[in-house]
C-alpha cells in the first residue's frame, strides 16, 4: 500500500497544503489501490480520467494560491446519488444504462468544495438490504475477511473506506445503511438528522426515512465532510433551515459532565457476552473522559422493526412505481400492451429483495389493510419518537451497539429475509424518529471489527462527533486496518 492512502483526510489536506505531495499523486495512489482491490467489488463505475482531470486542476489552482483546502482530495459516491454524465445504477438492472441528466446536490457541493470523484460505489439494489448481496453487480466483499459481507446497503462505501481506496465516501441510511456497514468494516459512519443533508438527486427508497451521510476513518474526517454537505437546499422540500454549526471547532469541546444514556432495551439479554464486553470498554473510556453514564428506558423500541418493515416497504412501493419502462430504465422487448410493458419491464428489471418490498408495501397499503398496517406503524412511530424525546430530557446522548454481531458470511442470511431484517434492530429506531446516529469502531472480536453507536437529539450531530473524537484521542480502534492492503 502506498503511504498516501494510509493518511487520514486531515493529513491528506495538510500534505497538499504544504506541498508534500500533489493532488495528482494523491488521486493516482488511490486509483491504483482501487485497481489493486478490484476483487472487493466496491466500485460499480471508476471515473479515473475525471478524477485525474480535477486533480490536475487542483494542482494548478494551488500553484496560483487559489485552491480550496479540499481541492484534489479523493471521494467516491454511493451509486444512489445522481452524477451528470456518469452512470447511476442504484445497483439495479433496471438502471444499468441510466446516465443521470444532473448532479445530486450532495455531489454538486462536493465538487464545488474541490473533491476529486474516483467513481460510484456498489450498494444493495435501491439501498434495500443489510449485506450488499442484493446488488445486480455482485456482492461487495469485506476487506477484513473476503468471505464475509461488508454490511449494507452502503457496503461499497464502507469497504472502500476500510480498504483505503478513498478517505471519504458518501452513503445513505434509511434503516441503518450507513451505520451497520461502518460497524462491520471498522470505519466511522454518520447518519445525520432527517433534513440535515439535501436529498435532491438521491434516488428515493422510503422518503420519510431516507437521509444522506458519510463514511470515513475518523470523527474529525466526518466533521470536515459534513460541513460540505449539510445545509438547506430549496430544491428539497424536506430540507431543514436549521443553522449548520462549525462541526470541526466543536470537536474539542470537553466531555466533562456530559450525560450519556444507556437504553436498557439495547443492553438486554439478547446481547452476546462478547458484544457486552466490547461496549464495556467503550463505557469505561467515556467515564474516564468525564462523562456520566445513566440508564434510560425506551419502552417502545422492541416495536421499531415491525413498524419499519411496514413504513419503508409501503413508501418504497410508491416511490418505485416510477419505473415503468417508458421514460427511463429497463424496457421489455415486444410489449403486447401497456400493462404487459409495465409488468414485464418491472419483473425483469428488479431483483428479488426489491420485489419482496414492493409486494409487502403494496399489500400494507391495499384496501382494507391500511389501518392495520401503515396507520398502526405510524402511530407506533410517534410513540418511539416520544420515547427518545423523553430520554433526552435525562441525557445528552445515547450509547448502544450498532449491530447484534460482527460481519456474517456471504450467503448466510440470504434465504431468510426476516433474519436479515433483524440485523437492523439497533439502527432503525433513530430513522423512525429522524434522529442523528453514528457508528464508530470499538476494536475487534475474533479478528472482525465491532462498532458502538451514539445517538443524539435532532440536529446535535456535533455532539456525536465530539464524543467520538475524544474517544479517538485516547484509543486506537479507528486506526486498525485490515491485513493485505
Amino acid at each position, binding site marked *: 500500500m502506498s503511504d498516501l492512502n494510509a493518511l487520514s483526510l486531515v493529513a491528506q489536506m495538510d500534505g497538499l497544503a504544504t506541498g508534500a505531495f500533489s493532488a495528482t499523486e494523491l488521486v493516482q495512489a488511490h486509483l491504483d489501490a482501487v485497481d489493486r482491490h478490484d476483487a472487493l467489488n466496491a466500485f460499480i463505475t471508476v471515473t479515473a480520467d475525471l478524477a485525474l482531470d480535477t486533480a490536475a486542476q487542483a494542482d494548478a489552482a494551488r500553484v496560483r494560491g487559489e485552491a480550496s483546502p479540499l481541492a484534489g482530495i479523493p471521494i467516491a459516491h454511493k451509486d444512489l446519488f445522481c452524477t451528470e454524465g456518469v452512470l447511476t445504477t442504484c445497483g439495479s438492472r433496471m438502471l444499468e*444504462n*441510466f*446516465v443521470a*441528466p444532473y448532479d445530486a446536490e450532495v455531489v454538486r457541493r462536493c465538487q464545488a468544495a474541490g473533491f476529486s470523484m474516483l467513481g460510484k460505489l456498489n450498494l444493495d439494489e435501491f439501498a434495500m438490504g443489510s449485506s450488499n448481496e442484493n446488488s445486480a453487480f455482485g456482492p461487495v466483499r469485506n476487506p477484513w475477511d473476503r468471505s464475509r459481507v461488508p454490511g449494507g446497503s452502503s457496503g461499497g462505501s464502507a469497504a472502500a473506506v476500510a480498504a483505503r481506496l478513498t478517505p471519504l465516501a458518501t452513503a445513505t441510511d434509511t434503516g441503518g445503511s450507513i451505520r451497520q456497514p461502518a460497524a462491520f468494516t471498522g470505519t466511522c459512519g454518520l447518519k445525520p438528522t*432527517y*433534513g440535515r443533508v439535501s436529498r435532491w438527486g438521491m434516488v428515493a427508497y422510503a422518503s*420519510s*426515512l431516507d437521509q444522506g451521510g458519510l463514511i470515513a476513518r475518523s470523527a474529525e474526517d466526518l466533521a470536515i465532510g459534513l460541513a460540505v454537505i449539510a445545509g438547506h437546499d*430549496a430544491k428539497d*422540500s*424536506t430540507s*431543514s433551515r436549521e443553522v449548520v454549526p462549525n462541526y470541526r471547532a466543536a470537536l474539542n469541546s470537553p466531555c466533562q459532565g456530559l450525560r450519556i444514556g444507556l437504553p436498557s432495551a439495547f443492553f438486554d439479554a439478547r446481547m452476546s457476552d462478547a458484544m457486552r464486553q466490547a461496549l464495556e470498554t467503550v463505557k469505561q473510556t467515556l467515564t474516564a473522559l468525564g462523562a456520566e453514564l445513566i440508564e434510560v428506558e425506551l419502552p*417502545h423500541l422492541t*416495536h421499531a422493526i*415491525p413498524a419499519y*418493515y*411496514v413504513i419503508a416497504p409501503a413508501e418504497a412501493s410508491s416511490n418505485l*412505481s416510477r419505473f*415503468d419502462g*417508458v*421514460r*427511463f*430504465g*429497463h424496457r421489455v422487448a415486444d*410489449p*403486447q400492451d*401497456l400493462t*404487459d*410493458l409495465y*409488468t*414485464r419491464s*418491472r*419483473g425483469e428489471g*428488479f431483483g*428479488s429483495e426489491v*420485489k*419482496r418490498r*414492493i*409486494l*409487502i408495501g403494496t*399489500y*400494507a397499503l*391495499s384496501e382494507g389493510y391500511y389501518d392495520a*398496517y401503515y396507520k*398502526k*406503524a*405510524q*402511530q*407506533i*412511530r*410517534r*410513540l418511539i*419518537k416520544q420515547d427518545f424525546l423523553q430520554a433526552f430530557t435525562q441525557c445528552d446522548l445515547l450509547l448502544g451497539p450498532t449491530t447484534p454481531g460482527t460481519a456474517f458470511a456471504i450467503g448466510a442470511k440470504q434465504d431468510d*429475509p*426476516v433474519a436479515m*431484517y433483524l440485523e437492523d434492530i439497533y439502527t432503525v429506531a433513530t*430513522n*423512525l*424518529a*429522524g434522529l442523528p446516529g453514528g457508528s464508530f469502531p470499538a476494536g475487534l472480536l475474533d479478528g472482525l471489527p465491532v462498532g458502538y453507536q451514539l445517538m443524539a437529539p435532532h440536529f446535535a450531530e456535533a455532539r456525536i462527533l465530539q464524543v467520538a473524537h475524544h474517544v479517538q484521542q485516547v484509543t486506537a480502534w479507528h486506526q486498525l486496518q485490515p491485513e493485505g492492503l
Partner: protein
Amino acid sequence: MPSLSSDDVTRVARLARLGLSEAEAERALTDLSAILTLVDAMAGVETSGVEPLSNPLDATQVLRPDEVTEVDARTTLMANAPAQADGLFLVPRVVE
C-alpha cells in the same frame, strides 16, 4: 391477521404491476407470510388516540412562488428513454 394465500400474492403483484415467475410467486408466499408474522406483532401495541407520525420532524410541506425555474432540457431527458421517435416516448397502442 388472516394468513396469506397465493391469490393474495397474485392480487398484490397485479396491483404493483410486477411480473413474477411461478417460482417467484411461490417463494413470495413463504417470504411475505414470514414478514407479516413479524409485523403482526404491532397489533398488540396500544395506540388508541395516538396521532400517526408521517414526517419525523412533524414538518409540513413548504411552498414557493409558482414560477418557472426549470430550463428546457428535453434532449437531455429524452436521452434515457428506452424507446422514442420524433422526441416522443413510445408505448404500445392504447386506443384501437
